[in-house]
């Protein structure tokens, strides 16, 4: 490979890395048999949460501080991007005995 080609390849990699910021991850949170797992999870602003509802019932992920309120239909997956840092206690509005904590780093 010529040095010029090598550099061009490197440049392409660099562009690719810029298009998809290295820190943005997808974190999966599963609701099954009335339990949210993991019960405690850490993520960062910009990360995507993949809410997976395996129950035959609708659930919500409702932040106690009002930061988010996601409704997940039975057997569906909903994705939402985290926009605000903080330690957020959340629960299901329909079944308030389903509770968990999401720690969002800036």
């Amino acid at each position, binding site marked *: 490979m010529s040095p010029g080609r090598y550099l061009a390849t490197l440049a392409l990699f660099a562009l690719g890395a810029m298009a998809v910021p290295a820190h943005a991850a997808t974190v999966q949170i599963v609701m099954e*048999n*009335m*339990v949210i797992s993991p019960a405690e999870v850490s993520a960062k602003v910009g990360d995507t949460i993949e809410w997976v509802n395996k129950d*035959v*019932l*609708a659930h919500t992920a409702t932040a106690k501080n009002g930061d988010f309120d996601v409704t997940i239909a*039975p057997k569906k997956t909903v994705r939402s991007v985290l926009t605000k840092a903080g330690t957020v206690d959340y629960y*299901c*509005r*329909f*079944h*308030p*005995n*389903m509770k968990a904590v999401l720690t969002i780093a800036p």
Partner: protein
Amino acid sequence: MFVRLSIAVAALGVLTGAALAQGAKLTDPQIAHIAYTAGVIDINAAKQAESKASSKDVKAFAKDMARDHEAVNKQALDLVKKLKVTPEDNDTSKALSKQAADKLAELGKLKGTAYDKAYIDNEVAYHKTVNTALETQLIPSASNPELKSLLQTGLKIFQGHEQHAEHVAAGMK
């Protein structure tokens, strides 16, 4: 155990002298019938509330109850079909249905906030009673592991409903 469940039913309100067989063990077909009946009762109460309730929160709660109990009862029907079990009517189911019909008629006479409050208070009490029956009678008596597991999930769902009802009730004061 039949006796203790009958006490729970009596605590709800009316027990019309139905002679409950003392010491008789509940069979899976009877347990399935009781659990299904308990769901139907709450769906009927929810349908009345969806048309009669004046508070937005109470209406939304009723909608949640109808949706959840319909989903759970559908699962129960699918399971009994799979297990080839025919739910069997019994004195506990009959007593539950009679009591619920009386309560529905009583609530039907109320209006406005009085209705909303009576419905929600009854939902708290009803879920409490059903959860106690599930925990102490139905789950321990169930022999089929899949039926037991469905009842256990049901208990978690209805405990959620009990808390939800308590939240709505607290918000009305």
